[in-house]
Every structure is written in structure tokens, then in C-alpha cells.
């Protein structure tokens, strides 16, 4: 018996369902996922953004496409809170991206303590399905608290931080590193549920942004003044 199994190629075993795969396990669980709008990302995250999860988005640079990544989700939900965004969000831009302008709420706080308080209140209210929060750094305790609160009230939270050098564990559901280079927008999965970290893979966020000109190599482009 043992020998027959061993003799079969691994693909056949997979087809018969004799090999347990973490990835598949979460597909059929009862948890609610909202599609990210990017098939490649949905696959790696087990179906999309998990409702009631806290996701860390580490940014190599601000404004590199992190909002474009979330645009498909933001278009679907009613009620988004923008907590301490790094610049003023621009309503005509939302309009251009077909976001419901009157469903976007901006909160600005002076201290991180107030920001955490406001975040907690927003989660407890349960009336805002998505919260976008910008933090310089969050302690392990704060993340755990946010995670518990978000899970209880089924609010999806995105925490934007800069690239973290330390690898100390945090209670985030997903930790992604977003980076843009001349070749495009890349997502690196640092932590995810039921899966290993993944090396950077391209994500087609640019289709939500103004069209880019196809350039052969950036070095050959004639620089301004135009």
C-alpha cells in the first residue's frame, strides 16, 4: 500500500486530495473574504482581505500605489475612515476613482495616543467597514488590541507604516511590503495566514492609475525642461 502511493507522482496525489495543503484549507472556511480586485493577490491571501483583519502595509515610499491597491475594495464598501493620512486626501481624485465621496471620513489627531483611541472607538462603533490608519510604529500590545477589536466588530483595518527593519512578531493577519520600481508595483508577503512568506511579485495596480507611457528604459528618456 505504502509503496503504491510512493510510486505515484505528486500531482496525482494532489488531485486525489491525499496531500493536505494549507492554502486550500482556508478557501473553504466560513470566514468572509472581500476580493482585493487582483487575482494574484487574492490567491496568496487565501481569497482576499479577511473581514475583521488587521493588515500591515509597509511602504518603501508613500504614494507609490498603496491606495490604488485598495481602490477595488474601497469602491465596494460604505464608510471608510482615513486616520492621520500623510497628506490631504483629494476629493476630486476620489471622484475620478469612483469612490463615494460622502462615505469618506478623515480623522486627524495630535498624538499617537489619541490616534489609537480614535481607532478603537471607530472599531467599536462597527459602522465603518474599513479603516485606513497611518502610524509611524505600533507596539505589539497595540496591534494585538486592534486585532481583537477589529475581529470582534468585523472591521477591516489597514495600517500603513514605513518599511520595518526589525522582524519582531506582530499580531497582524497579513504583513505586506509594497514597493515600486521602474519595472512596476511589487507586493512582498512578509506574513500571511496558513502560508509561507513570499518573495516580491508584481501586482497590476497601475490599471487604476493614469496610463503610463511605455518606456524602453528610463535612462533613455529625455529629461525636462519640456
Amino acid at each position, binding site marked *: 500500500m505504502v509503496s503504491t502511493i510512493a510510486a505515484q507522482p505528486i500531482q496525482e496525489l494532489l488531485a486525489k486530495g491525499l496531500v493536505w495543503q494549507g492554502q486550500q484549507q482556508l478557501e473553504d472556511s466560513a470566514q468572509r473574504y472581500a476580493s482585493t480586485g487582483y487575482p494574484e493577490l487574492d490567491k496568496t491571501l487565501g481569497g482576499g482581505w479577511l473581514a475583521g483583519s488587521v493588515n500591515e502595509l509597509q511602504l518603501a*515610499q508613500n504614494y507609490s500605489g498603496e491606495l490604488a491597491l485598495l481602490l477595488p475594495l474601497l469602491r465596494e464598501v460604505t464608510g471608510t475612515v482615513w486616520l492621520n493620512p500623510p497628506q*490631504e486626501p483629494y*476629493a476630486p481624485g476620489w471622484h475620478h476613482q469612483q469612490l463615494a465621496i460622502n462615505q469618506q*471620513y478623515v480623522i486627524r489627531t495630535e498624538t499617537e495616543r489619541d490616534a489609537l483611541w*480614535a481607532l478603537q472607538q471607530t472599531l467599536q462603533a462597527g*459602522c465603518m467597514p474599513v479603516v485606513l490608519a497611518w502610524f509611524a510604529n505600533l507596539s505589539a500590545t497595540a496591534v494585538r488590541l486592534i486585532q481583537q477589536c477589529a475581529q470582534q466588530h468585523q472591521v477591516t483595518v489597514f495600517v500603513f507604516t514605513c518599511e520595518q527593519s526589525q522582524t519582531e512578531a506582530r499580531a497582524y493577519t497579513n504583513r505586506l511590503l509594497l514597493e*515600486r520600481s521602474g519595472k512596476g508595483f511589487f507586493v512582498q508577503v512578509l506574513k500571511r495566514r496558513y502560508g509561507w512568506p513570499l518573495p516580491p511579485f508584481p501586482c497590476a495596480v497601475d490599471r487604476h*492609475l*493614469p496610463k503610463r507611457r511605455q518606456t524602453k528604459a528610463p535612462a533613455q528618456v529625455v529629461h525636462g525642461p519640456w
Partner: protein
Amino acid sequence: MAPGNLLRQSNKWLFLHAPQLLLDFQLTLQAPVQQQQPQALVCQQRQCLLQLNSAARQAGLHPGQSLAVARSLCAELEIRPYQELQERQLLRQLAHAFYQDIAQIALFPPQGLLFEVRSLQRLYGSLGQLQQRLQQRLQHWQLTASLASGFSPLAAQLLAQAGVNIVTGEVELVTAQLNQLPLSKTTLAAEVQKRLTGVGIHHVAALLALPASSLSQRFGKSMSYYLAALRGQVQAPQHYYRPPPYFYQRVDLLSETSDWPRLVFVLKRMLKNLEDFLCARQLCTRELVIDAHHRNKEYTRLHIRFAHDSWQQVDMLSLCQLHMERQPLQTPALELSLKVTRLRPLRAEPQDMLTTEHGRWTPAELLSRLQARLGETAVYRLALTSEQRPDRAQQCVRASQKATMVTVQARVRPLWLLTEPEPVAINEFTRQWGPERIDSGWWDNHHLQRDYYIGLDAHARQAWLFRDQRGWFLHGWFG
């Protein structure tokens, strides 16, 4: 008084006399331990006791006693000056509370209320039921008061002020009680009382037994008028209480305090009164003004705005507490006042009910809470305007405001806008798209002529750039 005269009448008046209105109210604001302390309100001019709590009475004190005697009898007596103005204000509040049950209320400041009850007979059926209702209210206010019926306002007033508790429809019972009253319990001038005693009249009975004409001959016209009023033969017009179209309450804190937790205790009660006020009129509000009055006649104002219609005490209190945490009181306060002038009709908003199904709060409630602690400018939404100029194409909408909807053509615009355009060296950017010329505002002083481009920076991020006479600027980011 001729009995035949009275039989045709009925007891259409009820008088409520609260001899310790101010003190009773102050006691309700105190902690139970403090209530056990002997306390008294004193008249500052005559230096005598006016109102006493039960502990002070047990110590052997009584109203009218001089302050020196009271102090020697009871050393730990807590003394506060009596303030008639406050008591008058309190009487108005009391009238307002009774206005729920009785339509015609006349104020007899500082401690009396006159109710016209005949018109209520059909509503309540019997006086007993009305009395029960009134007693409930008195208990709620924790007031000691006497209620007396009367066939004339003056008769009811005299009985109630004499401390007689008699609620009845029988005119004879009232007459009997009235006859027993000594002259000192009437409101006749002291000099008149003295002259009456001089001729051997000591009780109201004796006064009423005399023919009116001879009395007026001897004591003047005012005497005959007084008796006619007592008998109910003349009906002086009454100024009935009409509730004000706003809410105002001012409370003495009894001792100076600067910490909010102690003030919250008082505020809680005031907000409860406000809730009753709003609930009775089916109104709600989005604005409270709380003033903490200091010793030097100055005050600290706390302006609390909500993003949602509010009328419940619990709701308003939690928001007030958040405000208080944010703004500590610099100087101790002596009095606290609560004012609500902007009232709006209470109506259920179907839209809000849908949203509460999902969570515990509506967005407006959440915004109120956030605003309360973070400040009013900290929470906002953005709205489009019909402006061409990028800086003015959006405006902040405070949580309590309603956003006006403008239909604007969707143009290519970034998701981020820099509040101040940032001068840049253009050779660090690669051009992607453009130009879009924006030439607008020549009619006011902010004329703007710019060519907008989309360019890539060194990190391949899409930037919103413009060029004007001054050079190149970064104005926003896509992505």
C-alpha cells in the same frame, strides 16, 4: 361668611407650598453622607435661619432662630446664604415639571405654585388621582411641600402656607380648616393684624363672621378686597405659566470645585432634567452650552456640539465627559449652568436605523464621540465644489454639517493633494501626460494660470506637477 355663599362654589384651586424649595434641591445634589450633615440656609440681613434639613431640626434648631443661638446649639451646622433669585428660578423649573400634569399653573414666588384644577376634573376623574400624580412628582424632586385645596386662590394659598395638607372637593372641609387659622398665618399686613387682635379678632373664623361693610369702614377698602378675594367673590386674573422655548438651568455647587468628576455628578442631574424637557416636547438638540461660573463673575464656557440629534441623558453625558477630559478647568467653579437654545423636532431617521443594524452606533454618533475628545476640526469629510482651481475644488465638511452635493465632471485628479505646492527641480521627473491648462479665478484676486502634467519621480511614482510663471511645482500624488 354666609354658608350659602360657599355652597355654590367648589374647590377649583390647589396650592402647593414648598417651604424649603432651595435647600431640598441642594440636598438632592449631594452625596448621601453629606445629606446627613446639619445644614441651613440663612437670611444674611437678619442673621437668622430660614431653611433647615432634618439633621438640623433634630439638633433642636428651627426656622427663625438667630444665627448665634443656632451656632451655640449645633457647632457643626453648615451654613449657606439663602438666594432668592435661585429659588425663583427653581420654582420655574418645578412649574415646568408640573406642567406635564396641569395646564394652568400660576407662580407665587419664591415658594408657591397655584394650580387651577376644575378644568382637569374630566381628565383625572377625581382629585385623588391628580393628588397621587402630584405626590409622585414631589417624591421625584424629593421635596417637602404641602398641598391644599381652596375655593379661592387665596384660601388655598393660606392653607398651604400654614402647612395644612388638604386635597378635597368639599368646600365645608376647607372652610373648617380656614376658620381655625390664626391671623398670623394670613397675608394681612402686620399692622392690620395688630389692630385686629386689638379688637379681639384672633382667628380667620372671627374675621369672616363680621359683616364686610363694617370691616371696610374700619380697616379701609383693601380689607374688604382681601376678604372678597378670600371668599372667592373677586377673581383676580392669574398669570399662568407658559414654558419657555429653550432650556436653561443654573445650579449652585455648594462648594468651589475644579475637578470635572465632581461636576459630572451635578451635570448628570441637569442633563436628566434636559432629557425630561426634550422628551416632553419631542425635541432634540445638537448643541449644549455649559458654563462653569467662577468666583469673580467670570465663567468658562464649554460649547458642545454633536454630529447627531441627541436627547438622551446617557448619550449627552458621555459626550460631555469626553469634552471635559480634553479641557481641564483652570479655575474652581461655584456654579454650573446648562443652556440649550437650538432645539429641533425629534424625528426618526430611517437611514440611521438601517446602519444601526450592523453596529452599535450610527456614523453620526461615532463622529460626535470623536469630535468630543479630539476637537471639532479633527473629524471631517470632504466635498466637491464647482471650482476649477485645484486648491478650491474641495472643501472640508464638519461632522455636524450637511454636505452639499455638487455634480462635477470627473477629471484626472490625484488622490493626494499637497496643501502647499512644493517647488521642484523638473529634471528629476519624467513626463507622462499633459498639459492640462487651468486658467480660472480672474474675477477675484486669486487668478490662477497653470499647466498641469503627470510626471514620474525617481521612484516611478506618479506626481501631479504644474508649471506657472514662478516655475515648477509638485501639487499632488496619484496612487
